[in-house]
């Protein structure tokens, strides 16, 4: 896992890594609000 959710975000259930990558590609601005790189 190279990403963690930012403080202020509460993802239920935890997003699998393969979906995180899809999320990052399709919604980069939203992604930055939700995730931090470890």
């Amino acid at each position: 896992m190279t990403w963690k959710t930012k403080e202020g975000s509460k993802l239920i259930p935890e997003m699998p890594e393969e979906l995180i990558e899809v999320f990052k590609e399709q919604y980069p601005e939203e992604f930055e609000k939700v995730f931090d790189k470890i």
Partner: protein
Amino acid sequence: MIQLNRPKVGAATSITIVRINLKDKFTSDFDTANGILSVFTSQLTGKSQYKTPIVNFGADYYNNRFTTIYFYTSPVGSNVYTMHMGTSDYPLGFYDVSIYQNSSTSNFDPAGLNLVYTGLGNVTATNAAASPTFTEYTTNDGDTDSVYITLN
């Protein structure tokens, strides 16, 4: 209306981000760690997909009023998060959508759950994932062959 996009085969899973104000719909004892249960029922086939989509219950969205839901759609397969769309059972088109506050992240039965949202969904296809292309007949087509049928 919740607009979902079905990617073409071979493309990555598609995400649709939906924010709904559900703050006053959840019961006061709702444990957000249980997540939500979404039910998409095709208006064409009547068949339903039960999923536990990934939800952001974070406080950063408009003073904690909105619940953010990440709906994943795929043309080739599904899991507990991802809906398989564009099939004979789950075709493109209109869906009745229900969202429940779930009793656990592994529950897929809406019986007894608190219904927090009902609405309409529409599943469309990306370019190159839609129906086959074709050329319509024209009304001024000069090539008008006649076929004569002889009855015996």
